[in-house]
């Protein structure tokens, strides 16, 4: 059953775009990576023309997260194409697909709203492969008559994909997670720790005032080191760290750091350096790193919910208990 709408009264709106990224675009991308204005970095959904497309030009479908839109169009220099931007509430393709907003319903709606059938003679849509979790290709065809072709995972392969007659190599269909891919995800992880860290420093400051301190430089850099290990070092070194679970990987590196912090401050030779404090650090810092590393599963490309749940059922209780006991030991140490 094809849905037909008498749309002669509706306004037709095509927005022009190009494959050129301006300084503002690149700055905006950098800011988004650091969490600045990230939740509102959108372009208007609808139909865009890139170059000089006609009724035979390909139609590429994407999300209205500006970083996504820019990442797509910058790979299309020299092409004449239509870009159909779906309203994914400013979220990238893969996440939106998982949520359902880059989905069958939105795609069908957007097709009808922009009246795409008036601009192209063919009835083919090229979707990013990572939109597949949200889109049922055969449903789209049933409802609109448009055929869905899944293009490559990476925009940079689109030109070759189109030129080879809509054929994708297995390489084009595989998601990678290189060190660089992992690195660009770390700023946002780090920025997410600012508020909780400031609260922790606040608490330590108050404890100092109450005479339960003194918490000082070593506690500070020990904690910051654990944060950087969990948010940055573990993600970047990910495949090189032994073990499969992310929490474990974070814990391992965090443990090495905690030992280092102890050794740098006199343990075990200096009798002034209490065992309680040393053990306290060994319990707290790796747990902090483990928790932050565990959170990186949400940004990774190869973890599953079932796997994360399995990890968490063990990791979360262990982390909580470690931190509580470790903090207690450190506090007790201040009294004796």
């Amino acid at each position, binding site marked *: 059953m094809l849905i037909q709408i008498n749309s002669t009264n509706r306004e037709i709106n095509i927005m022009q775009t190009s494959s050129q990224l301006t300084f503002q675009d690149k700055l905006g991308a950098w800011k988004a*990576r650091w*969490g600045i204005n*990230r*939740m509102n970095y959108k372009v208007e959904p609808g139909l865009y023309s890139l170059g000089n497309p006609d009724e035979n030009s390909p139609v590429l479908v994407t999300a209205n997260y500006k970083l996504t839109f820019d990442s797509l169009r910058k790979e299309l220099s020299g092409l004449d194409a239509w870009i159909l931007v779906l309203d994914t509430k400013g*979220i*990238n393709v893969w*996440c939106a*697909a*998982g*949520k359902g907003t880059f989905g069958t319903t939105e795609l069908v709606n957007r097709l009808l709203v922009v009246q795409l059938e008036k601009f192209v003679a063919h009835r083919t849509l090229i979707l990013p*492969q*990572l939109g*597949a*979790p*949200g*889109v*049922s*290709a*055969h449903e789209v065809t049933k409802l609109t008559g448009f055929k869905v072709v*899944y293009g490559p*995972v990476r925009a940079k392969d689109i030109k070759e994909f189109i030129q080879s007659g809509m054929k*994708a190599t*297995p390489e084009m*269909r*595989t*998601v990678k*997670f290189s060190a660089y891919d992992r690195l660009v*995800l770390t700023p*946002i*992880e780090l920025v*997410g720790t600012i*508020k909780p860290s400031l609260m922790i420093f606040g608490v330590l400051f108050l404890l100092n005032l109450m005479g339960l301190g003194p918490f000082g430089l070593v506690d500070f850099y020990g904690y910051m080191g654990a944060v950087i290990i969990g948010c940055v070092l573990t993600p970047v070194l*990910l*495949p090189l760290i032994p073990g*499969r*679970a992310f929490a474990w990987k974070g814990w391992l590196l965090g443990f090495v750091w905690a030992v280092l912090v102890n050794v740098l401050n006199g343990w075990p030779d200096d009798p002034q350096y209490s065992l309680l404090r040393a053990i306290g650090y060994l319990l707290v810092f790796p747990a902090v790193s483990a928790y932050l590393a*565990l*959170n*990186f*599963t*949400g*940004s990774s*490309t*190869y*973890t*599953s*919910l*079932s*796997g*994360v*749940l*399995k*990890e*968490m059922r063990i990791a*979360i209780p262990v982390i909580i208990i470690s931190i509580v006991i470790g903090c207690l030991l450190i506090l007790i140490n201040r009294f004796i």
Partner: protein
Amino acid sequence: MKHRYLKNVTTLKLGQSKCTGCGRCIEVCPHQVLAIVDSKCSIIDKDSCIECGACVKNCPFNALEVRPGVGCAAAVIKSWFTGEEPSCDCSSSGGCCS
């Protein structure tokens, strides 16, 4: 080099009786979990499955099933407290949806 996560956890299932070998699942899988074996689709690398649901969504014959879900640890923890289904509401402090 293929990244490897935990083993034997995925909920992916393929009902060969419904499979016609159309290959849509292979086309959409981001980790080459499936391949054609004896003119039908088959799971060849189960532990690489990330339960994204792309194959399930795009199988016209309902031969596949998986328990999809937000794989974001922060969302899961939140759902333990709220009692609701984990959802990617993408708070700016979360690590998901980068």
